[in-house]
């Protein structure tokens, strides 16, 4: 079966820094893959290359067997890869529902209507329904600027989900969320995303979250893959303990 995402021999350098060194990963459908690694290991660079923000120096990226390595973020989104951000990228002066309406309007394609009101109708309903899946319907009419950091994080993920992507990339979905709320946040995300049966790649630093939610873990170090496999095996790997988890587990 063709993997949803296939990455082969990805290379990326920023001057003397090697951000991706011969990275190859195949991600089958419906997998929940977690990327771990210290800061600067190459996780976000990987996400940025897959979503078209950075062009790899060499190597191939394929979505459902079609090359996407040279596509723009817009094209990649249209082809079925969405992402959320470590720092939520929202339309800060708009309300949560308006943020989601923009995402839904974009996802439904075609021409954006210059006459249909954005405050009502089908797209607004879909936007509120998406918020509701994350338990955020009560925040629908509040400007995003007023929302707490954790709520913004979920709004950001909800926007990425509007397009019903084949592959959803979540860059540190629990960063900035307090320790006791991390599991609740991840539960909401996994619950909301499970309805789409999307393949998920998420970047995470909390190994308890990794153990609980990931089917597979890929550990990065200096731009190369240190280990790739089931969480129980990868997290016990000596090199991973030495360079990534710091022997904490």
């Amino acid at each position: 079966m063709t993997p949803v995402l296939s990455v082969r021999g990805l290379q990326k350098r920023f001057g003397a820094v090697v951000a991706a060194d011969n990275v190859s990963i195949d991600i089958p459908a419906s997998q929940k893959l977690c990327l771990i690694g210290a800061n600067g290991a190459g996780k976000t660079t990987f996400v940025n290359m897959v979503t078209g923000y950075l062009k790899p120096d060499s190597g191939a990226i394929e979505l459902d067997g079609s090359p996407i390595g040279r596509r723009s973020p817009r094209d990649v989104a249209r082809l079925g890869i969405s992402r959320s951000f470590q720092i939520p990228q929202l339309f800060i002066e708009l309300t949560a529902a308006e943020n989601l309406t923009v995402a839904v309007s974009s996802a439904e394609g075609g021409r954006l209507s210059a006459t249909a009101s954005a405050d009502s109708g089908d797209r607004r309903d879909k936007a509120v329904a998406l918020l509701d899946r994350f338990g955020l319907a009560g925040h629908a009419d509040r400007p995003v600027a007023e929302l707490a950091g954790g709520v913004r994080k979920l709004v950001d993920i909800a926007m990425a989900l509007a397009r019903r992507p084949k592959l959803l990339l979540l860059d540190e979905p629990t960063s900035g969320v307090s320790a006791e709320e991390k599991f609740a946040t991840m539960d909401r995300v996994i619950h909301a995303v499970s309805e789409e049966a999307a393949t998920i790649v998420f970047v995470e630093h909390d190994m308890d979250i990794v153990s609980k939610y990931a089917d597979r873990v890929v550990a990065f170090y200096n731009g190369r893959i240190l280990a790739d496999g089931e969480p129980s095996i990868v997290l016990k790997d000596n090199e991973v303990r030495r360079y990534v988890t710091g022997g904490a587990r």
Partner: protein
Amino acid sequence: MKLSTNPFVLLGLVVLAVLFGRVIPAWTLSLATVAASKALVALGIVVLARTGNVSFGQGLFFAAGGYGVALIANEWGLTDAVAQVLIGAVCGGLLGLVIGPLIARYTGIFFGMLTLALSMVLYGALVKTTVLGGSDGFNVGRPTLFGAVFNDPREADFMLYAVSVVATGLAGVFATILFKSQFGLTSLAVRENNLRVEYLGTSANRIVSINFMIAAVFAGASGALSLMAQRHIDPEFAYWTTSGDFVFIAVLAGSQSVAAVFVAALALELVRSFSNLYLPNTWQLVLGLFLLAVILFLPRGIGSLWAGRRRKVSEPPAEPAAAGKGAAS
């Protein structure tokens, strides 16, 4: 739908504004005509500003509309006011269609400076083009309306006033609908975070280009209105101070309300007229102080007096019970 944004109510207001021209003194008629015409360009700047970009060179399209109409009027004898407004809009729009996609990839000060530079290129070209009258420009004939010729100055003034108010009013109704639409919302999203708009799969450049073209159409139509009022055109139409005047109105108005653009244009013309009358040597100072006062006390423009309260801070809702402890940090 709210009464203040119902298109039929707004159209009714436009009709009332036209009829109002029958009862106001003659001197206010030409002042209101100028204000309506300038408001049309400023409205375009506000439309564009909702994508986060300000054009300092709307004189480019203002002149394109004016010169296009003037040349056609002199060449083919087309004097109908409505046709002239439409031709002006088309001339401005066509130029906007060409320039918009080229300029949309720039943002902020680069965008503003490029628009200014382009308008000054046209100004320079017009000054040097002797066949178009060079720096002196040239005259055009008196406009007509649906075959009717207006020899009585009061009737001619009223006709111009009516055409200006209807053109600007229709543009205002269109802008009101646009601001509330999905396209309008996405335009605001581009202003807030254009990269995220791209990541959602929509072309931010395309949104900016379309808004740019709408602004160009408005400026072109306004160029035709000004031409009709002055019956003369010269390169000043494209000069940077002309563009600055429009930005001045847009800054006064803010980007939250269409009605504010008309109020700002009228207020500016009134302040200009009275300060010119009573303080002929220092009227620019009065205008400057007026702008400073608005920026100081209404930093989001005159429109924030009524539209700014829309986004009042609401009480945070209780976390949904089903969500457990919640994610708020």
